[in-house]
């Protein structure tokens, strides 16, 4: 299992995984799945009609594609992508966040890699902050950024 960020997970969800991960089973943490879902949430009438950057991403899709995307985000094919159950990671993530200057999202990613002994492959260099690099080095995690 390879732990990925949203940039690698989204293409995989629509059957277009990055070439270097094409034959791998991928995993995405709960907070990253949540953040990705927020970024792709479609608008609706009424006071939830948010006209921000987030809604515009999904507006380019047909209604059918939007529905299929959210079904896949909530319940992906396990052969393609697993959403990691956060419950068993809470103590580890808390300890990591108490040790390194990382966000909850980053701590959960590191906790999943430590706990399950999974490699991490980010699809964007922006996912690899200096504190995450430091934590990965000190925890001897296999972490790399892949090229699209």
């Amino acid at each position, binding site marked *: 299992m390879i732990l990925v960020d*949203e*940039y*690698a997970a*989204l*293409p995989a*969800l*629509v*059957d*277009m995984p990055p070439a270097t991960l094409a034959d791998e089973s991928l995993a995405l943490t709960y*907070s990253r799945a*949540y*953040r*990705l879902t*927020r*970024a792709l949430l479609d608008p*609706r*009438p*009424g*006071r*939830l009609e948010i006209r*921000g*950057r*987030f809604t515009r*991403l999904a507006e*380019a*899709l*047909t209604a*059918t*594609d939007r*529905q*299929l*995307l*959210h*079904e*896949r*985000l*909530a*319940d992906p*094919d396990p052969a393609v992508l697993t959403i990691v159950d956060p419950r068993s990671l809470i103590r580890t993530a808390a300890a990591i966040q108490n040790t390194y200057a*990382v*966000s*909850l*999202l*980053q701590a959960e*990613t590191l906790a999943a890699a430590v706990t399950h002994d999974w490699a991490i492959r980010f*699809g*964007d260099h*922006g*996912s690899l*902050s200096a504190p*995450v690099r430091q934590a990965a080095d000190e925890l001897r995690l296999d972490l790399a950024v892949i090229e*699209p």
Partner: protein
Amino acid sequence: MVRVDRDLRDWLRGLAVQPEKRNGERGKLSREGAEYLERIATDGTLKAALEEIGATEPDLSG
């Protein structure tokens, strides 16, 4: 007295994805839809959106 917004409530309830109600085989996105999502994952569009979320909510940054 608080007025109940039934449209909002119904919409929020409808957003929940219930796998057990899925009818057998998983649907496949159109080629255009899949290519669009693959493109925004790599061309900086998704990155800008995620960074915007992280800018206001530090625990969702990174």
